[in-house]
């Protein structure tokens, strides 16, 4: 007895070094309770949950490479004559910003690769955010309690676009300078205060000598600072709300089914970070992006053909390109609608999707928490709206690249432009109708599968000669997945007169809400899911096939 307790005391006295360090840290940081609470935190697993991770990792890559670039970049518009090693540019006048970007590309060790990783990662970051946002949209993950987090994510996407734009403007090359000239035109089109804003931003007339130095702190400090804050808040909320999960057997609104944070999820996420880094690095090593040495320094009287912004500005570019050149001149003033309308539409269209969660919750009146995701088909109107929105977005991407479509496919630029003008309005309507029909069709198929089972592809010949296909009943788990969704009743205003026959006051917003609600849950917008009775009736009967 005594020997064992002596041994235990000895073991306590000589704790391993790791444990002592951990004890030390716990005494100061309280890591034990933190770890206890979070190490076993459960994360559900699905491939689509990795889209958000792609964003996180590419953001980290952007920050790491961006810091390296700041060590060598000179944000100055002072004019110099190039005398560096790149022969074709020798003797050419350029700004210090452009020269230092050439130096980063040709003289700084690893500079070109880092520059390319920085740029490619930005493209991936924005593409990741777009797809992540669409995943969240189509699965209804933005519903309570996650509306605020959806907004944070949306703001990250929006600010990501601005940060990207300010970033690719910094080298002061011919292409980015052209983009900035466009920004001047945008400012000028703003009624009343446009010229003042332009003069203020550029520090006088375009291009002036201040702009690059001003964009620099916005690009490396202000915007990324805000984005970092939003990103941290986004992740904290993901942790706090717990992750959503797809419907399935054993999954409820009150549990989370998946793998623990440590070790499984951390190992996966850590590995995935290196995968993302690896793919972006490989891309950057193989594919040239923004070769400013062939584009040359900015001069306001020069331009090249095929001028394109980075992809995420393509939507804005499209709006600007296909808008008719309306200009109204009256009382000594000019209203530049041809530029102003697209520039107002640009944020409006984006914010239509950004504010959607609030619109949907108003229409449905649903104030409950949702942790089980929707299958997109089970929310046909939302899915159709999302596809319509994406259609408008992609039509405008075509508009933004109308010159490239023309040269690559040997089409007339005028017909492409007209196509985009019409498709911007017609396309979303067609997409809405088609998507809704497809969703309802899928709902019907689900219903059919639940009631009649899966088609096995086995053809059986009955004794009297009839051929039938053998259907196999679904497993219980599959039945659950196909029938777990709710089908709420549409919002009703109620009788128009009260019990005394007096006409009730009905607000116009109530009428609108009721109408929209029918559009979501009304008769032709939902295929009633099979009931327990229907299922039993069919499956208990003899000779079902």
């Amino acid at each position, binding site marked *: 007895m005594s020997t064992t307790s002596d041994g235990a005391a000895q073991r306590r006295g000589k704790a391993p070094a790791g444990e002592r360090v951990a004890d030390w840290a716990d005494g100061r940081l309280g890591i034990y309770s933190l770890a206890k609470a979070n190490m076993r935190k459960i994360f559900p697993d699905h491939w689509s949950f990795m889209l958000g991770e792609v964003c996180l990792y590419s953001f980290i890559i952007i920050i790491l490479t961006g810091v390296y670039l700041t060590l060598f970049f000179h944000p100055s518009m002072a004019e110099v004559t190039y005398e560096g090693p790149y022969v074709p540019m020798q003797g050419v006048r350029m700004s210090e910003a452009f020269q230092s970007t050439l130096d980063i590309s040709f003289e700084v060790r690893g500079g070109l690769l880092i520059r390319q990783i920085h740029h490619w990662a930005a493209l991936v970051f924005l593409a990741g955010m777009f797809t992540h946002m669409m995943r969240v949209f189509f699965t209804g993950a933005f519903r309570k309690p996650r509306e605020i987090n959806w907004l944070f994510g949306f703001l990250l996407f929006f600010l990501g676009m601005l940060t990207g734009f300010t970033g690719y403007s910094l080298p002061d090359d011919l292409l980015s300078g*052209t983009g900035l000239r466009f920004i001047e035109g945008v400012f000028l*089109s703003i009624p009343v205060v446009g010229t003042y804003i332009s003069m203020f931003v550029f520090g006088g007339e*375009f291009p002036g000598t201040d702009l690059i130095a001003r964009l620099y702190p916005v690009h490396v400090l202000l915007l990324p600072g805000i984005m970092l804050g939003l990103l941290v808040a986004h992740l904290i909320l993901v942790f706090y709300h717990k992750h959503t999960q797809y419907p399935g057997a054993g999954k409820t609104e009150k549990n989370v089914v998946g793998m623990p944070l440590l070790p499984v999820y951390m190992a996966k996420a850590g590995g995935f970070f290196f995968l993302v880094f690896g793919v972006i690095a490989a891309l950057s090593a193989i594919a040239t992006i923004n070769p400013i040495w062939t584009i040359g320094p900015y001069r*306001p*009287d020069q331009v090249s053909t095929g*001028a394109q912004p980075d992809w995420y500005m393509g939507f804005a570019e499209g709006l600007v390109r296909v*808008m008719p050149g309306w200009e109204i001149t009256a009382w000594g003033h000019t209203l530049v609608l*041809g530029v102003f309308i697209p520039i107002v539409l640009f944020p409006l269209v984006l914010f239509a999707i950004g504010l959607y969660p609030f619109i949907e919750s108003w229409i449905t009146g649903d104030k409950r928490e949702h942790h089980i995701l929707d299958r997109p088909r089970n929310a046909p109107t939302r899915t159709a709206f999302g596809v319509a929105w994406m259609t408008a977005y992609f039509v405008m991407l075509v508009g933004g690249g109308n010159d490239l479509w023309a040269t690559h496919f040997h089409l007339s630029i005028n017909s492409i*432009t007209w196509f985009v003008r019409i498709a911007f309005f017609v396309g979303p309507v067609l997409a809405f109708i088609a998507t809704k029909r497809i969703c309802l069709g899928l709902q019907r198929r689900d219903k059919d599968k639940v009631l009649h089972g899966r088609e096995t592809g086995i053809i059986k010949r009955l004794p009297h000669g009839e051929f039938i296909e053998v259907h196999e009943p679904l497993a219980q788990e599959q039945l659950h997945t196909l029938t777990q969704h709710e089908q709420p009743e549409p919002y009703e205003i109620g009788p128009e007169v009260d019990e005394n026959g007096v006409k009730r006051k009905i607000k116009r917003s109530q009428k609108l809400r009721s109408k929209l609600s029918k559009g979501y849950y009304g008769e032709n917008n939902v295929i009633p899911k099979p009931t327990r009775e229907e299922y039993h009736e069919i499956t208990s009967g003899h000779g079902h096939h």
Partner: protein
Amino acid sequence: MPEGMSEEQHDFQTEIAKAALMLVRLQPENIKDKRELDWSHEGIVAFSKICTHVGCPINLYEQQTHHVLCPCHQSTFDLSDGGRVIFGPAGHALPQLRIRANDQGYLEAMGDFSEPVGPAYWERG
């Protein structure tokens, strides 16, 4: 380049952003606009190179049609018809510069543009 202007001067970029010019030789009988003809010299016309949409330098000239296309947003102007917009998002014609040949046979401008070049703005009127 305007007289006395050089790449070395500190406001060169700002000046060239307004002063950039296109010189095109047309057959005088192809010029449809009367004022354009008056302001030309033997079919040589001078138009502002700065697009009236958002200020890109226009540089895709099609000799057969006399159309000039801005590579940024594809506004198309007819240089044989007073720089009129025939397609795209630009809102008004390209300003023309009145030119003549001087005693020594050099082309020279007879003054500045008669209207602001580049994109439209609130005070333009």
